[in-house]
Protein backbone atom coordinates (compact mmCIF):
# COMPACT_ATOMS: atom_id res chain seq x y z
CA UNK A 1 0.00 0.00 0.00
CA UNK A 2 2.65 2.49 1.04
CA UNK A 3 4.78 1.48 -1.89
CA UNK A 4 1.86 2.08 -4.21
CA UNK A 5 1.19 5.49 -2.69
CA UNK A 6 4.84 6.45 -3.06
CA UNK A 7 5.12 5.25 -6.64
CA UNK A 8 1.86 6.91 -7.66
CA UNK A 9 2.97 10.19 -6.10
CA UNK A 10 6.35 9.91 -7.78
CA UNK A 11 4.79 9.27 -11.16
CA UNK A 12 2.92 12.58 -11.07
CA UNK A 13 6.18 14.46 -10.72
CA UNK A 14 7.34 14.04 -14.34
CA UNK A 15 3.86 15.01 -15.55
CA UNK A 16 3.87 18.17 -13.47
CA UNK A 17 7.41 18.94 -14.57
CA UNK A 18 6.45 18.66 -18.22
CA UNK A 19 3.45 20.88 -17.62
CA UNK A 20 5.81 23.42 -16.05
CA UNK A 21 8.23 23.18 -18.99
CA UNK A 22 5.38 23.57 -21.48
CA UNK A 23 3.99 26.61 -19.67
CA UNK A 24 7.48 28.06 -19.40
CA UNK A 25 8.21 27.49 -23.08
CA UNK A 26 4.88 29.06 -24.02
CA UNK A 27 6.40 32.43 -23.36
CA UNK A 28 9.72 31.67 -25.02
CA UNK A 29 7.91 30.74 -28.21
CA UNK A 30 6.57 34.23 -28.63
CA UNK A 31 8.26 36.22 -31.31
CA UNK A 32 10.30 39.02 -29.82
CA UNK A 33 11.91 39.83 -26.49
CA UNK A 34 10.30 37.79 -23.65
CA UNK A 35 11.01 40.55 -21.15
CA UNK A 36 9.11 43.05 -23.27
CA UNK A 37 6.31 40.55 -23.76
CA UNK A 38 6.03 39.87 -20.02
CA UNK A 39 6.11 43.56 -19.21
CA UNK A 40 3.22 44.26 -21.56
CA UNK A 41 2.71 46.95 -24.14
CA UNK A 42 2.82 49.91 -21.76
CA UNK A 43 5.99 49.11 -19.85
CA UNK A 44 8.91 51.50 -19.54
CA UNK A 45 12.46 50.53 -20.47
CA UNK A 46 13.40 50.31 -16.78
CA UNK A 47 10.57 47.89 -16.08
CA UNK A 48 11.68 45.72 -18.98
CA UNK A 49 15.27 45.76 -17.71
CA UNK A 50 14.09 44.90 -14.21
CA UNK A 51 12.24 41.87 -15.54
CA UNK A 52 15.22 40.86 -17.62
CA UNK A 53 17.47 40.73 -14.57
CA UNK A 54 14.89 39.21 -12.22
CA UNK A 55 14.19 36.37 -14.63
CA UNK A 56 17.81 36.07 -15.70
CA UNK A 57 16.92 36.36 -19.34
CA UNK A 58 20.55 36.92 -20.27
CA UNK A 59 21.44 33.48 -18.89
CA UNK A 60 21.11 30.11 -20.67
CA UNK A 61 17.55 28.88 -21.06
CA UNK A 62 17.98 26.01 -18.59
CA UNK A 63 19.05 28.46 -15.89
CA UNK A 64 16.11 30.68 -16.79
CA UNK A 65 13.77 27.75 -16.32
CA UNK A 66 15.40 27.02 -12.96
CA UNK A 67 14.85 30.59 -11.77
CA UNK A 68 11.28 30.68 -13.02
CA UNK A 69 10.45 27.27 -11.57
CA UNK A 70 12.01 28.17 -8.23
CA UNK A 71 9.79 31.25 -8.08
CA UNK A 72 6.72 29.21 -8.96
CA UNK A 73 7.49 26.73 -6.18
CA UNK A 74 7.54 29.66 -3.77
CA UNK A 75 4.11 30.68 -5.01
CA UNK A 76 5.55 33.59 -6.94
CA UNK A 77 3.86 33.50 -10.33
CA UNK A 78 5.08 36.90 -11.36
CA UNK A 79 3.23 40.14 -11.67
CA UNK A 80 0.37 41.07 -13.94
CA UNK A 81 1.19 44.31 -15.66
CA UNK A 82 -2.34 44.70 -16.84
CA UNK A 83 -4.11 44.36 -13.51
CA UNK A 84 -1.29 45.88 -11.41
CA UNK A 85 -1.36 42.96 -9.00
CA UNK A 86 0.69 39.85 -8.52
CA UNK A 87 -0.71 36.87 -10.36
CA UNK A 88 -1.14 35.00 -7.08
CA UNK A 89 -3.32 37.82 -5.70
CA UNK A 90 -5.34 37.93 -8.89
CA UNK A 91 -5.99 34.23 -8.77
CA UNK A 92 -6.98 34.39 -5.11
CA UNK A 93 -9.51 37.10 -5.94
CA UNK A 94 -11.05 35.14 -8.76
CA UNK A 95 -11.04 31.71 -7.17
CA UNK A 96 -14.38 31.77 -5.36
CA UNK A 97 -16.74 32.14 -8.35
CA UNK A 98 -14.93 29.46 -10.31
CA UNK A 99 -14.85 27.00 -7.42
CA UNK A 100 -18.54 27.63 -6.71
CA UNK A 101 -19.45 27.13 -10.36
CA UNK A 102 -17.33 24.01 -10.76
CA UNK A 103 -18.50 22.32 -7.55
CA UNK A 104 -22.13 23.16 -8.25
CA UNK A 105 -21.78 21.75 -11.77
CA UNK A 106 -20.18 18.53 -10.60
CA UNK A 107 -22.89 18.01 -7.99
CA UNK A 108 -25.68 18.68 -10.51
CA UNK A 109 -24.03 16.45 -13.10
CA UNK A 110 -23.49 13.50 -10.78
CA UNK A 111 -26.95 13.74 -9.23
CA UNK A 112 -28.57 13.77 -12.67
CA UNK A 113 -26.27 11.50 -14.65
CA UNK A 114 -25.70 8.55 -12.33
CA UNK A 115 -29.39 7.65 -11.79
CA UNK A 116 -30.08 8.12 -15.49
CA UNK A 117 -27.15 5.90 -16.41
CA UNK A 118 -28.26 3.21 -13.95
CA UNK A 119 -31.82 3.28 -15.29
CA UNK A 120 -30.58 3.10 -18.88
CA UNK A 121 -28.41 0.10 -18.05
CA UNK A 122 -31.27 -1.55 -16.18
CA UNK A 123 -33.53 -1.27 -19.20
CA UNK A 124 -30.70 -1.86 -21.65
CA UNK A 125 -31.93 -1.33 -25.22
CA UNK A 126 -35.30 0.03 -24.09
CA UNK A 127 -36.81 3.37 -24.98
CA UNK A 128 -35.31 5.14 -21.97
CA UNK A 129 -31.89 3.81 -22.89
CA UNK A 130 -32.14 4.92 -26.49
CA UNK A 131 -33.56 8.33 -25.59
CA UNK A 132 -30.81 8.86 -23.08
CA UNK A 133 -28.07 7.88 -25.52
CA UNK A 134 -29.59 10.19 -28.12
CA UNK A 135 -29.59 13.06 -25.65
CA UNK A 136 -26.07 12.22 -24.68
CA UNK A 137 -24.87 12.63 -28.29
CA UNK A 138 -26.82 15.89 -28.35
CA UNK A 139 -25.18 16.92 -25.08
CA UNK A 140 -21.73 16.32 -26.56
CA UNK A 141 -22.61 18.44 -29.56
CA UNK A 142 -24.43 21.48 -28.26
CA UNK A 143 -21.83 24.16 -27.60
CA UNK A 144 -21.76 25.50 -24.05
CA UNK A 145 -22.25 29.08 -25.14
CA UNK A 146 -25.15 28.29 -27.45
CA UNK A 147 -26.89 26.43 -24.65
CA UNK A 148 -26.09 29.25 -22.24
CA UNK A 149 -27.71 31.85 -24.45
CA UNK A 150 -30.65 29.58 -25.16
CA UNK A 151 -31.27 29.18 -21.43
CA UNK A 152 -30.84 32.89 -20.75
CA UNK A 153 -33.28 33.67 -23.53
CA UNK A 154 -35.86 31.16 -22.33
CA UNK A 155 -35.58 31.22 -18.54
CA UNK A 156 -34.42 34.77 -17.86
CA UNK A 157 -35.76 36.87 -20.72
CA UNK A 158 -39.00 35.09 -21.66
CA UNK A 159 -40.00 33.66 -18.31
CA UNK A 160 -38.16 36.07 -16.04
CA UNK A 161 -37.46 33.42 -13.44
CA UNK A 162 -33.76 33.95 -12.89
CA UNK A 163 -31.25 36.77 -13.23
CA UNK A 164 -29.79 37.13 -16.73
CA UNK A 165 -26.13 37.37 -15.85
CA UNK A 166 -23.70 38.23 -13.08
CA UNK A 167 -22.48 36.70 -9.87
CA UNK A 168 -23.11 37.27 -6.17
CA UNK A 169 -20.57 36.26 -3.61
CA UNK A 170 -21.61 33.81 -0.95
CA UNK A 171 -21.02 36.60 1.56
CA UNK A 172 -23.85 38.58 -0.03
CA UNK A 173 -26.43 36.01 0.99
CA UNK A 174 -27.18 32.43 0.09
CA UNK A 175 -30.35 33.19 -1.90
CA UNK A 176 -28.84 35.49 -4.54
CA UNK A 177 -25.69 33.34 -4.62
CA UNK A 178 -27.68 30.27 -5.62
CA UNK A 179 -30.04 32.09 -7.97
CA UNK A 180 -27.09 33.40 -9.94
CA UNK A 181 -25.45 29.99 -10.06
CA UNK A 182 -28.40 27.92 -11.31
CA UNK A 183 -28.25 28.75 -15.02
CA UNK A 184 -24.46 28.66 -15.40
CA UNK A 185 -24.24 25.32 -13.58
CA UNK A 186 -27.07 23.84 -15.64
CA UNK A 187 -25.41 25.02 -18.84
CA UNK A 188 -22.05 23.66 -17.90
CA UNK A 189 -23.35 20.38 -16.52
CA UNK A 190 -25.01 19.21 -19.74
CA UNK A 191 -21.88 17.92 -21.43
CA UNK A 192 -20.70 16.45 -18.14
CA UNK A 193 -24.03 14.69 -17.69
CA UNK A 194 -23.70 13.24 -21.19
CA UNK A 195 -20.24 11.94 -20.40
CA UNK A 196 -20.99 10.49 -16.95
CA UNK A 197 -24.33 8.98 -17.98
CA UNK A 198 -22.71 7.10 -20.87
CA UNK A 199 -19.98 5.65 -18.72
CA UNK A 200 -22.36 4.81 -15.87
CA UNK A 201 -24.63 3.04 -18.31
CA UNK A 202 -21.81 0.99 -19.80
CA UNK A 203 -20.27 0.11 -16.43
CA UNK A 204 -23.55 -0.79 -14.72
CA UNK A 205 -24.71 -2.79 -17.74
CA UNK A 206 -21.52 -4.79 -17.55
CA UNK A 207 -21.84 -5.33 -13.79
CA UNK A 208 -25.42 -6.51 -14.28
CA UNK A 209 -24.19 -9.45 -16.34
CA UNK A 210 -22.07 -10.74 -13.45
CA UNK A 211 -22.88 -13.88 -11.53
CA UNK A 212 -23.22 -12.08 -8.22
CA UNK A 213 -26.11 -10.07 -9.62
CA UNK A 214 -27.88 -13.25 -10.59
CA UNK A 215 -27.23 -14.60 -7.11
CA UNK A 216 -28.54 -11.43 -5.51
CA UNK A 217 -31.72 -11.61 -7.56
CA UNK A 218 -32.06 -15.33 -6.87
CA UNK A 219 -31.98 -14.82 -3.15
CA UNK A 220 -34.85 -12.36 -3.59
CA UNK A 221 -33.24 -8.99 -2.99
CA UNK A 222 -35.37 -6.05 -4.11
CA UNK A 223 -34.30 -4.83 -7.56
CA UNK A 224 -33.33 -1.39 -6.25
CA UNK A 225 -30.89 -2.98 -3.83
CA UNK A 226 -29.45 -5.16 -6.60
CA UNK A 227 -28.96 -2.10 -8.76
CA UNK A 228 -27.41 0.11 -6.12
CA UNK A 229 -25.54 -2.18 -3.75
CA UNK A 230 -24.42 -4.75 -6.30
CA UNK A 231 -24.32 -3.21 -9.76
CA UNK A 232 -23.58 0.45 -9.08
CA UNK A 233 -21.09 -0.23 -6.31
CA UNK A 234 -19.13 -2.43 -8.67
CA UNK A 235 -19.29 0.17 -11.41
CA UNK A 236 -17.88 2.89 -9.18
CA UNK A 237 -14.32 2.85 -10.50
CA UNK A 238 -15.05 3.76 -14.14
CA UNK A 239 -17.62 6.34 -13.05
CA UNK A 240 -15.25 8.09 -10.69
CA UNK A 241 -12.51 7.88 -13.31
CA UNK A 242 -14.60 9.63 -15.92
CA UNK A 243 -15.56 12.36 -13.47
CA UNK A 244 -11.84 13.06 -13.11
CA UNK A 245 -11.08 12.93 -16.82
CA UNK A 246 -14.11 15.09 -17.51
CA UNK A 247 -12.58 17.84 -15.38
CA UNK A 248 -10.57 18.89 -18.43
CA UNK A 249 -13.85 19.42 -20.23
CA UNK A 250 -15.25 21.25 -17.24
CA UNK A 251 -12.28 23.62 -17.13
CA UNK A 252 -12.67 24.45 -20.81
CA UNK A 253 -16.38 24.95 -20.22
CA UNK A 254 -15.77 27.22 -17.24
CA UNK A 255 -13.84 29.64 -19.44
CA UNK A 256 -16.74 29.90 -21.85
CA UNK A 257 -19.57 29.83 -19.31
CA UNK A 258 -18.04 32.59 -17.23
CA UNK A 259 -17.86 34.71 -20.34
CA UNK A 260 -21.48 34.08 -21.27
CA UNK A 261 -22.80 34.74 -17.77
CA UNK A 262 -20.36 37.55 -16.86
CA UNK A 263 -18.99 35.70 -13.87
CA UNK A 264 -15.75 37.26 -12.60
CA UNK A 265 -13.87 34.01 -12.10
CA UNK A 266 -10.67 32.42 -13.34
CA UNK A 267 -12.17 31.67 -16.74
CA UNK A 268 -12.93 35.32 -17.35
CA UNK A 269 -9.49 36.15 -16.04
CA UNK A 270 -7.97 33.81 -18.64
CA UNK A 271 -9.84 35.45 -21.50
CA UNK A 272 -9.11 38.97 -20.25
CA UNK A 273 -5.45 38.07 -19.86
CA UNK A 274 -5.28 36.66 -23.38
CA UNK A 275 -6.97 39.72 -24.85
CA UNK A 276 -4.52 41.97 -22.98
CA UNK A 277 -1.61 39.61 -23.84
CA UNK A 278 -0.87 39.52 -20.12
CA UNK A 279 1.48 36.52 -20.22
CA UNK A 280 2.36 36.08 -16.54
CA UNK A 281 -1.36 35.79 -15.79
CA UNK A 282 -1.96 33.36 -18.67
CA UNK A 283 0.91 31.20 -17.44
CA UNK A 284 -0.32 31.32 -13.86
CA UNK A 285 -3.88 30.36 -14.68
CA UNK A 286 -2.89 27.53 -16.99
CA UNK A 287 -0.44 26.20 -14.46
CA UNK A 288 -3.08 26.33 -11.73
CA UNK A 289 -5.76 24.59 -13.80
CA UNK A 290 -3.35 21.90 -14.99
CA UNK A 291 -1.95 21.18 -11.55
CA UNK A 292 -5.48 21.01 -10.14
CA UNK A 293 -6.44 18.61 -12.90
CA UNK A 294 -3.44 16.35 -12.27
CA UNK A 295 -3.89 16.35 -8.50
CA UNK A 296 -7.62 15.61 -8.62
CA UNK A 297 -6.93 12.69 -10.93
CA UNK A 298 -4.21 11.52 -8.55
CA UNK A 299 -6.72 11.57 -5.69
CA UNK A 300 -9.16 9.65 -7.84
CA UNK A 301 -6.56 7.01 -8.59
CA UNK A 302 -5.95 6.68 -4.87
CA UNK A 303 -9.69 6.41 -4.22
CA UNK A 304 -9.77 3.13 -6.16
CA UNK A 305 -8.28 1.49 -3.10
CA UNK A 306 -11.41 2.34 -1.14
CA UNK A 307 -13.93 1.95 -3.94
CA UNK A 308 -12.74 -1.46 -4.95
CA UNK A 309 -11.09 -3.41 -2.13
CA UNK A 310 -10.02 -6.05 -4.66
CA UNK A 311 -7.50 -3.64 -6.10
CA UNK A 312 -4.10 -4.30 -4.59
CA UNK A 313 -1.34 -2.37 -6.15
Amino acid at each position, binding site marked *: MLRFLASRLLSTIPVLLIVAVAVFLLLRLTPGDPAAVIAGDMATTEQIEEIRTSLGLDKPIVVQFGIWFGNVLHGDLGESFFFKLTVAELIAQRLEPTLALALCTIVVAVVVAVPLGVLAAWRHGGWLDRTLMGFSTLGFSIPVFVLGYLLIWLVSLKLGWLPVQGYRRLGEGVGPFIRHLILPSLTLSVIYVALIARVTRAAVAEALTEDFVRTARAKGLPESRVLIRHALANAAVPIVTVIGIGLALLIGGVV*VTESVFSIPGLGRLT*VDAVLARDFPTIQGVILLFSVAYVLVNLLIDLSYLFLDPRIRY
Partner: protein
Amino acid sequence: MDTPVATLEAQPAPPRELWGKLRRNTAVVIGGCLLALLAVGSLLAPWLSTIDPTLIDPVNRDLLPGASAEVMTFTGETIRHTYWMGSDSYGRDIHSRVLYGGRVSLIVGVTVAALSLFFGLITGLIAGYVRWLDGVVMRVMDGLMAIPGILLAIALVALWRASLLTVIVAITIPEIPRVVRLVRALVLSIREEPYVEAAISVGTSTPKLLYRHILPNTLAPLIVQGTYICAFAILVEAILSFLGVGLPTDVPTWGNIMAEGRLQFQQYPHNVLFPGLFLAVTVLAVNMLGDGLRDTLDPRFNKRGERAL
Protein backbone atom coordinates in the same frame (compact mmCIF):
# COMPACT_ATOMS: atom_id res chain seq x y z
CA MET B 1 -6.87 7.01 -17.56
CA ASP B 2 -5.95 4.61 -20.31
CA THR B 3 -6.91 5.34 -23.85
CA PRO B 4 -9.34 2.94 -25.45
CA VAL B 5 -7.44 -0.10 -26.51
CA ALA B 6 -9.07 -1.17 -29.71
CA THR B 7 -8.43 -4.79 -30.24
CA LEU B 8 -8.47 -5.84 -33.80
CA GLU B 9 -9.72 -9.21 -34.73
CA ALA B 10 -11.68 -9.29 -37.94
CA GLN B 11 -10.07 -8.72 -41.29
CA PRO B 12 -11.19 -5.46 -42.88
CA ALA B 13 -14.44 -5.97 -44.76
CA PRO B 14 -14.27 -5.76 -48.55
CA PRO B 15 -15.19 -2.27 -49.81
CA ARG B 16 -18.58 -3.08 -51.26
CA GLU B 17 -19.80 -4.89 -48.18
CA LEU B 18 -18.56 -2.02 -46.01
CA TRP B 19 -20.39 0.53 -48.11
CA GLY B 20 -23.60 -1.44 -47.70
CA LYS B 21 -23.11 -1.59 -43.95
CA LEU B 22 -22.51 2.14 -43.78
CA ARG B 23 -25.61 2.85 -45.82
CA ARG B 24 -27.73 0.82 -43.45
CA ASN B 25 -26.49 2.73 -40.40
CA THR B 26 -28.96 5.52 -39.56
CA ALA B 27 -26.41 7.65 -37.73
CA VAL B 28 -24.02 7.57 -40.67
CA VAL B 29 -26.77 8.42 -43.14
CA ILE B 30 -28.25 11.30 -41.13
CA GLY B 31 -24.88 12.72 -40.10
CA GLY B 32 -23.46 12.34 -43.59
CA CYS B 33 -26.46 13.96 -45.27
CA LEU B 34 -26.49 16.91 -42.86
CA LEU B 35 -22.79 17.45 -43.43
CA ALA B 36 -23.11 17.15 -47.19
CA LEU B 37 -25.93 19.70 -47.08
CA LEU B 38 -23.81 22.05 -45.04
CA ALA B 39 -20.76 21.60 -47.26
CA VAL B 40 -22.82 22.27 -50.39
CA GLY B 41 -24.49 25.24 -48.70
CA SER B 42 -21.25 26.90 -47.71
CA LEU B 43 -19.50 26.12 -51.01
CA LEU B 44 -22.40 27.40 -53.07
CA ALA B 45 -23.03 30.33 -50.71
CA PRO B 46 -22.66 32.96 -53.47
CA TRP B 47 -25.65 31.50 -55.31
CA LEU B 48 -27.93 30.96 -52.33
CA SER B 49 -29.53 34.40 -52.18
CA THR B 50 -26.64 35.85 -50.23
CA ILE B 51 -24.89 39.18 -50.47
CA ASP B 52 -21.29 39.88 -49.52
CA PRO B 53 -21.01 38.79 -45.86
CA THR B 54 -18.81 41.77 -45.05
CA LEU B 55 -21.10 44.34 -46.66
CA ILE B 56 -21.83 47.00 -44.05
CA ASP B 57 -25.04 48.94 -44.52
CA PRO B 58 -26.06 51.15 -41.58
CA VAL B 59 -29.51 51.81 -43.04
CA ASN B 60 -30.42 48.14 -42.85
CA ARG B 61 -29.10 47.41 -39.39
CA ASP B 62 -30.92 45.30 -36.81
CA LEU B 63 -33.48 43.92 -39.26
CA LEU B 64 -35.65 41.09 -38.02
CA PRO B 65 -35.49 37.69 -39.73
CA GLY B 66 -37.40 37.64 -43.01
CA ALA B 67 -37.28 41.42 -43.54
CA SER B 68 -36.71 42.62 -47.07
CA ALA B 69 -34.85 45.79 -48.01
CA GLU B 70 -32.99 47.63 -50.77
CA VAL B 71 -29.26 47.25 -50.45
CA MET B 72 -26.36 48.66 -52.46
CA THR B 73 -23.72 46.04 -53.22
CA PHE B 74 -19.98 46.61 -53.53
CA THR B 75 -20.34 46.85 -57.30
CA GLY B 76 -22.65 49.83 -56.87
CA GLU B 77 -25.95 48.34 -58.00
CA THR B 78 -29.00 48.44 -55.78
CA ILE B 79 -30.78 45.15 -55.31
CA ARG B 80 -33.72 43.94 -53.31
CA HIS B 81 -32.52 41.49 -50.67
CA THR B 82 -34.34 39.37 -48.17
CA TYR B 83 -32.66 39.07 -44.77
CA TRP B 84 -33.74 35.54 -43.95
CA MET B 85 -32.00 35.65 -40.59
CA GLY B 86 -32.11 39.40 -40.08
CA SER B 87 -29.10 41.69 -39.98
CA ASP B 88 -26.59 42.66 -37.31
CA SER B 89 -25.87 46.06 -35.81
CA TYR B 90 -23.68 46.94 -38.81
CA GLY B 91 -26.41 46.00 -41.25
CA ARG B 92 -24.65 42.87 -42.44
CA ASP B 93 -26.81 39.98 -43.58
CA ILE B 94 -26.73 37.20 -40.98
CA HIS B 95 -27.86 34.57 -43.49
CA SER B 96 -24.91 35.35 -45.78
CA ARG B 97 -22.51 35.48 -42.86
CA VAL B 98 -23.71 32.15 -41.49
CA LEU B 99 -23.34 30.40 -44.86
CA TYR B 100 -19.89 31.83 -45.52
CA GLY B 101 -18.97 31.11 -41.89
CA GLY B 102 -19.65 27.45 -42.56
CA ARG B 103 -16.61 27.44 -44.83
CA VAL B 104 -14.30 28.42 -41.99
CA SER B 105 -15.78 25.79 -39.67
CA LEU B 106 -15.46 23.01 -42.21
CA ILE B 107 -11.92 23.99 -43.22
CA VAL B 108 -10.81 24.15 -39.59
CA GLY B 109 -12.54 20.88 -38.70
CA VAL B 110 -11.13 18.89 -41.58
CA THR B 111 -7.63 20.38 -41.46
CA VAL B 112 -7.24 19.93 -37.71
CA ALA B 113 -8.43 16.33 -37.95
CA ALA B 114 -6.04 15.58 -40.82
CA LEU B 115 -3.04 17.28 -39.19
CA SER B 116 -3.51 15.75 -35.75
CA LEU B 117 -4.00 12.29 -37.25
CA PHE B 118 -0.89 12.70 -39.38
CA PHE B 119 1.45 13.87 -36.63
CA GLY B 120 -0.17 11.66 -34.02
CA LEU B 121 0.16 8.62 -36.26
CA ILE B 122 3.85 9.18 -36.92
CA THR B 123 4.68 9.85 -33.28
CA GLY B 124 2.50 6.99 -32.10
CA LEU B 125 4.08 4.51 -34.51
CA ILE B 126 7.51 5.53 -33.34
CA ALA B 127 6.57 5.37 -29.66
CA GLY B 128 4.87 2.04 -30.11
CA TYR B 129 7.64 0.48 -32.12
CA VAL B 130 10.87 2.06 -30.97
CA ARG B 131 10.79 0.89 -27.37
CA TRP B 132 13.55 3.03 -25.92
CA LEU B 133 11.83 6.21 -27.11
CA ASP B 134 8.47 5.13 -25.76
CA GLY B 135 8.95 6.22 -22.15
CA VAL B 136 10.17 9.70 -23.01
CA VAL B 137 7.55 10.35 -25.70
CA MET B 138 4.69 9.14 -23.57
CA ARG B 139 5.73 11.18 -20.53
CA VAL B 140 5.77 14.30 -22.72
CA MET B 141 2.34 13.39 -24.08
CA ASP B 142 1.00 12.83 -20.54
CA GLY B 143 2.28 16.25 -19.58
CA LEU B 144 0.69 17.92 -22.59
CA MET B 145 -2.59 16.14 -21.92
CA ALA B 146 -2.62 17.45 -18.38
CA ILE B 147 -3.18 20.94 -19.78
CA PRO B 148 -6.88 21.27 -20.59
CA GLY B 149 -7.15 21.42 -24.40
CA ILE B 150 -9.18 24.57 -24.76
CA LEU B 151 -6.89 26.46 -22.38
CA LEU B 152 -3.81 25.39 -24.30
CA ALA B 153 -5.42 26.43 -27.58
CA ILE B 154 -6.37 29.82 -26.12
CA ALA B 155 -2.84 30.37 -24.83
CA LEU B 156 -1.26 29.37 -28.13
CA VAL B 157 -3.48 31.71 -30.10
CA ALA B 158 -2.54 34.49 -27.70
CA LEU B 159 1.11 33.92 -28.58
CA TRP B 160 0.82 34.21 -32.29
CA ARG B 161 -2.00 36.64 -33.02
CA ALA B 162 -4.89 34.99 -34.71
CA SER B 163 -5.11 33.93 -38.33
CA LEU B 164 -6.60 30.86 -39.96
CA LEU B 165 -3.23 29.10 -39.79
CA THR B 166 -2.50 29.91 -36.14
CA VAL B 167 -6.01 28.93 -35.07
CA ILE B 168 -5.62 25.59 -36.84
CA VAL B 169 -2.21 24.95 -35.30
CA ALA B 170 -3.41 26.00 -31.86
CA ILE B 171 -6.30 23.57 -31.96
CA THR B 172 -4.16 20.79 -33.44
CA ILE B 173 -1.41 20.78 -30.82
CA PRO B 174 -3.61 19.75 -27.85
CA GLU B 175 -5.19 17.01 -29.99
CA ILE B 176 -1.95 15.31 -31.06
CA PRO B 177 -1.18 13.60 -27.71
CA ARG B 178 -4.58 11.91 -27.72
CA VAL B 179 -3.94 10.45 -31.17
CA VAL B 180 -0.44 9.38 -30.13
CA ARG B 181 -1.87 7.47 -27.17
CA LEU B 182 -4.42 5.74 -29.35
CA VAL B 183 -1.92 4.78 -32.06
CA ARG B 184 0.63 3.58 -29.53
CA ALA B 185 -1.94 1.40 -27.78
CA LEU B 186 -2.98 -0.02 -31.15
CA VAL B 187 0.59 -0.71 -32.21
CA LEU B 188 1.37 -2.43 -28.91
CA SER B 189 -1.55 -4.78 -29.36
CA ILE B 190 -1.00 -5.38 -33.08
CA ARG B 191 2.67 -6.23 -32.73
CA GLU B 192 1.72 -9.20 -30.57
CA GLU B 193 -0.38 -10.65 -33.40
CA PRO B 194 0.87 -13.86 -35.01
CA TYR B 195 0.99 -12.36 -38.50
CA VAL B 196 3.40 -9.69 -37.31
CA GLU B 197 5.57 -12.34 -35.76
CA ALA B 198 5.37 -14.27 -39.03
CA ALA B 199 6.36 -11.20 -41.02
CA ILE B 200 9.32 -10.60 -38.74
CA SER B 201 10.43 -14.22 -38.99
CA VAL B 202 10.60 -14.05 -42.78
CA GLY B 203 12.79 -11.01 -42.48
CA THR B 204 10.46 -8.11 -43.27
CA SER B 205 12.20 -4.79 -42.69
CA THR B 206 10.84 -2.55 -39.96
CA PRO B 207 9.60 0.25 -42.24
CA LYS B 208 7.81 -2.26 -44.43
CA LEU B 209 6.39 -4.00 -41.38
CA LEU B 210 5.01 -0.72 -40.08
CA TYR B 211 3.64 0.28 -43.45
CA ARG B 212 2.22 -3.01 -44.66
CA HIS B 213 1.08 -4.75 -41.51
CA ILE B 214 0.61 -2.29 -38.69
CA LEU B 215 -0.56 0.89 -40.38
CA PRO B 216 -3.59 -0.62 -42.19
CA ASN B 217 -4.89 -2.03 -38.92
CA THR B 218 -4.82 1.35 -37.22
CA LEU B 219 -6.96 2.99 -39.89
CA ALA B 220 -10.46 2.15 -38.66
CA PRO B 221 -10.02 3.51 -35.13
CA LEU B 222 -8.14 6.50 -36.53
CA ILE B 223 -10.95 7.42 -38.91
CA VAL B 224 -13.39 7.28 -36.02
CA GLN B 225 -11.08 9.35 -33.83
CA GLY B 226 -10.65 11.78 -36.73
CA THR B 227 -14.36 12.53 -36.89
CA TYR B 228 -14.47 13.26 -33.15
CA ILE B 229 -11.47 15.53 -33.50
CA CYS B 230 -13.18 17.29 -36.39
CA ALA B 231 -16.28 17.93 -34.27
CA PHE B 232 -14.20 19.17 -31.38
CA ALA B 233 -12.11 21.43 -33.63
CA ILE B 234 -15.22 23.07 -35.08
CA LEU B 235 -16.42 23.67 -31.54
CA VAL B 236 -13.12 25.09 -30.31
CA GLU B 237 -12.75 27.38 -33.32
CA ALA B 238 -16.19 28.80 -32.57
CA ILE B 239 -15.28 29.17 -28.89
CA LEU B 240 -12.05 31.00 -29.74
CA SER B 241 -13.86 33.40 -32.08
CA PHE B 242 -16.67 33.84 -29.58
CA LEU B 243 -14.23 34.76 -26.81
CA GLY B 244 -12.62 37.28 -29.16
CA VAL B 245 -9.27 35.49 -29.40
CA GLY B 246 -9.92 33.59 -32.63
CA LEU B 247 -10.00 34.73 -36.23
CA PRO B 248 -10.09 38.51 -36.80
CA THR B 249 -13.59 39.90 -36.18
CA ASP B 250 -14.16 40.91 -39.80
CA VAL B 251 -13.95 37.28 -40.95
CA PRO B 252 -17.42 35.76 -40.88
CA THR B 253 -17.25 32.74 -38.59
CA TRP B 254 -20.05 31.39 -36.44
CA GLY B 255 -18.19 32.32 -33.28
CA ASN B 256 -17.58 35.87 -34.52
CA ILE B 257 -21.22 36.36 -35.50
CA MET B 258 -22.26 35.23 -32.04
CA ALA B 259 -19.67 37.42 -30.36
CA GLU B 260 -21.08 40.46 -32.14
CA GLY B 261 -24.64 39.36 -31.57
CA ARG B 262 -24.20 38.89 -27.83
CA LEU B 263 -23.95 42.64 -27.26
CA GLN B 264 -27.56 43.00 -28.37
CA PHE B 265 -28.71 39.63 -27.23
CA GLN B 266 -31.58 40.93 -25.12
CA GLN B 267 -33.23 42.78 -28.03
CA TYR B 268 -32.18 40.60 -30.97
CA PRO B 269 -31.53 37.04 -29.77
CA HIS B 270 -31.59 35.68 -33.34
CA ASN B 271 -28.12 37.08 -34.05
CA VAL B 272 -26.77 34.59 -31.55
CA LEU B 273 -29.27 31.79 -31.97
CA PHE B 274 -29.01 31.29 -35.77
CA PRO B 275 -25.24 30.77 -35.94
CA GLY B 276 -25.53 28.81 -32.70
CA LEU B 277 -28.08 26.51 -34.27
CA PHE B 278 -25.85 25.92 -37.29
CA LEU B 279 -22.89 25.22 -35.04
CA ALA B 280 -24.83 22.79 -32.86
CA VAL B 281 -26.30 20.92 -35.83
CA THR B 282 -22.92 20.68 -37.54
CA VAL B 283 -21.16 19.32 -34.49
CA LEU B 284 -24.05 16.94 -33.90
CA ALA B 285 -23.83 15.72 -37.49
CA VAL B 286 -20.10 15.06 -37.24
CA ASN B 287 -20.54 13.28 -33.91
CA MET B 288 -23.33 11.13 -35.32
CA LEU B 289 -21.16 10.26 -38.27
CA GLY B 290 -18.39 9.34 -35.84
CA ASP B 291 -20.67 7.16 -33.69
CA GLY B 292 -22.02 5.45 -36.79
CA LEU B 293 -18.55 4.85 -38.23
CA ARG B 294 -17.39 3.50 -34.90
CA ASP B 295 -20.25 1.02 -34.74
CA THR B 296 -19.71 -0.07 -38.34
CA LEU B 297 -15.95 -0.04 -38.75
CA ASP B 298 -14.79 -1.01 -35.36
CA PRO B 299 -17.46 -2.31 -33.03
CA ARG B 300 -15.04 -3.00 -30.21
CA PHE B 301 -13.67 0.51 -30.16
CA ASN B 302 -16.66 1.50 -28.15
CA LYS B 303 -15.49 3.58 -25.28
CA ARG B 304 -16.51 7.05 -26.24
CA GLY B 305 -16.61 8.10 -22.60
CA GLU B 306 -12.90 7.70 -22.20
CA ARG B 307 -12.14 10.33 -24.77
CA ALA B 308 -11.50 13.32 -22.56
CA LEU B 309 -11.79 16.45 -24.57
